[in-house]
């Protein structure tokens, strides 16, 4: 049996010592790290995909340099996130017809267009467009880059043959990150 101390006496000594240590620590300038508080949700799938689209501009070469326009084909899933990622550095064009987006540098094929990758590629014809899709099998079906989600992490599939047909040169650094590369 232990003797029970009155409430509040038991640990005040240790508490006081620790409080003093806290104050001493707080008074040192030890390069403390700032918090990352937000009053908003965390990074979403489309924050990430928007960031990828902007990065692709830096790691793909277009004949003539590209038009500086990113097209979104189908229902826009970004909800303003693409504008936020681009910060005015590229413009955005939305359409439900591939033909309207032939002048774009990149065409993002939204999930709403799933199952029609081949038709979309055909409609874009010989336009110098980097097609980016988010549906399973997009690159295999003739799109240039597929951004797929494996649970909580992204995965890239790249079709180099489709890139060649569009006259695009994909950097080795980007190719190295692809989980699958289709060359024919």
């Amino acid at each position, binding site marked *: *049996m*232990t003797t*029970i101390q*009155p*409430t*509040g006496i*038991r*640990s005040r000594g240790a*508490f006081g010592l*620790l*409080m003093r240590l*806290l104050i001493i*620590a*707080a008074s040192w*300038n*030890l*390069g*403390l*790290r*700032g*918090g*990352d*508080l*937000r*009053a*908003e*949700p*965390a*990074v*979403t*799938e489309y*924050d*990430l995909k*928007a*960031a*990828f689209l902007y*990065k692709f501009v830096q*790691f793909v070469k277009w004949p003539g340099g590209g038009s500086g326009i990113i097209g979104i084909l189908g*229902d826009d*899933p970004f*909800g*303003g996130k693409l504008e936020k*990622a681009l910060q005015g550095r590229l413009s955005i064009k939305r359409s439900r017809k591939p033909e309207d987006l032939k002048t774009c540098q990149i065409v993002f094929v939204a*999930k*709403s267009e*799933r*199952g029609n990758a081949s038709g979309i590629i055909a409609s874009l014809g010989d336009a110098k467009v980097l097609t980016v899709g988010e*549906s*399973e099998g997009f690159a295999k079906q003739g799109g240039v880059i597929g951004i797929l*989600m494996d*649970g*909580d*992490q*992204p995965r*890239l599939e790249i079709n180099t043959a489709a890139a060649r047909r569009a006259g695009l040169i994909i950097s080795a*650094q*980007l190719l190295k*990150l692809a989980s699958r590369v289709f060359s024919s």
Partner: protein
Amino acid sequence: MELSLEDLMQVKLPTVTTASKKSEKVTEAPGMVYVIDKNDIRLRGYSTLKDVLRDLPGMELTNNYFSELGSQVSVRGITSSNKIVVLLNGMRVNPPGGEYFPLRSDFSVRRAEQIEVIYGPGSTLYGQDAISAVINVKTKQPPASGKAEIELGGEVGVNLERELYGSFGKVFDTARNFSFDGYVQYHDSDLTPIDTEYPNWWQAYRAAAAPKGRGTTPERQDYGLNAYAHLQLGDFSLQSWFRDSRRSSAEGYGGTALFYVNEALWEDRSWVTEAKYDWKISDKVKLTSAVTANWYQVDPDTRYVESASPTTYFLNDFKYANGTSYGVEETFHVDLSKKLSMVFGGTFARYDIIPKSTIPGGADPGSDNSIIQQGGNFVYYTVPGDATSRHEIPRAVVSQYNRYGTYLEFGWQLAPKLKLIAGSRVDKDTRISDPSYTPRGALIYNLTDTLTLKYTYSWAYISPAPYFGFATYDRGDILNTSNPNLQPETSKTHELNITYNKKAIEVGLSLYYGDQENLILVSDVASQANILSNRVYLDLAGTQTRVLTNTVNGGRSRNAGLDFYGKAKLNRALSLWFSYSYTTYEASTTGTITGLNGISPHNFRLGCTWAVTPKLFVTPSITIRSTPRNVDPGWLSGELTNPWEANLHILYKATDKMELYIKLQNATDNHYALTSFTSTANPQETFSGVVGVRIAF
């Protein structure tokens, strides 16, 4: 997002892992999944797990419900903290003997990265007792940069409340994935002075205690200690979690049966350790092996203080418990194809439990005499004056048993927008002849990119806990004996969940209907089914009578209701969360129909965070309940009507290195009451406030 390509490839999106034992988006997980992240924790000022639960949709937390469990949690109308499974980074930390999960001030969430709450039955993957929710507290990983992360904090406030906490994390070798992290948190408070705050309610205590010379002023305390450590080396991890808490053993009992004197305390502790190895056999097959040791003890100093006579206290009602379990679990994760995945596992656990026992004079675990010998027997007679009618009930027992289980669940993407989840589990407990089957099926349909519809049908069961089956005690009115033949209580639940996620808005609605059978009717309620004999005698002369009871199976209950919940970011500086829950519950036992067990049918919560400046965050919140059902109001009828509470948390980032905060719980000093263990209205904490500082190295 100015990250390199390589960094982008490493970004992990907010996902959950608890619902299916694999990483998936909330909208892809079966059932209703609710997530509290590290920002919610800091902006709302959560310190311990019970702070989090009181703000969750569908849950109702009753503070000071009973010393043995601390706060009671009801989930969707089903009351009882032994019907939830609580995990820490996937490691089960419920006490091994099936005791109520202790919700006091000894489960820190200060270092939590994310808390995942899976509503409804979870037995298919988690086995026994996952009746109403599975809660997984996931701690932060150390920074991948290799920089040491140290955080220290402390707070002080009214009622002598004080808390200190610190955490550490560092990756020592990135290539070898060698890291260490952990935390310690200490909490203590004298709690609300209930004699002065609720004088009418306290007057009966005062009158009963005054002739005894002390006890007219309540001796309350809320001590909690929690420590955690995690070592990662490659694919091997070792994590260990310890908690210890102490409260007055008079908390929540109502009436004047137990007294708030210095000797009256309840203290218990847990220590859970897990070693785990993840073996990536191929790109498509992973095997996770885990070995877990779980220990729970009720401190030998624990005792209830009752009245021995009008002028004296009875100080010899000591309690003790000591239980351990050792378990292994093997889990295969297999991607059979791009559209079909499988989780397959097997478990074995050995239990060695001394459930809560009465030990006159207090237990001495180091003694040569076993706890069973120290406990001795309760004696009773069925016929006064007839020595041959003598019976003995051992005060302490040792319950040893094994449990085996296996589970298999498939996730099948039937169509681009439609996913099927189907699985089942079977558990065999060596105390029980029939195995327990707990299947689960779910259909998840993405109506649009923003709307998801889920239907889930799932079974669960509660394993008969030695805590209930072997609870033997003399309460003054009843004498409770053991029942080693308790059977599992089962639950079957239908749930329809629809969620809308677009931009900065997340809204969900769940409709549920549950059916529970073969209820474990705990002896404390002394319902007709619990009564073995209306009159037995503690002495041969027959002057001390008791009702003889035990815990039994019987009856059926149903719960149904809805949870409507959401979060939204209204503009750059303002975000809010809300929930409204409605629940009904009806139990039918031995011809008696009862309703909600001391809780409210309607619950509403609203809170927001206003980023006044980039450095100042103000988070007010309010919880309103309708009047709890089936509660004896006693002296607290006014306080029991539509109980509500308003809270305020203000966080100021003084520098990049330091945060200051003020937390005002029950900021309006509202006096209100909720139910207690005896279904009598129990006063809740009035205003409490702390100021704190947190620094990070």
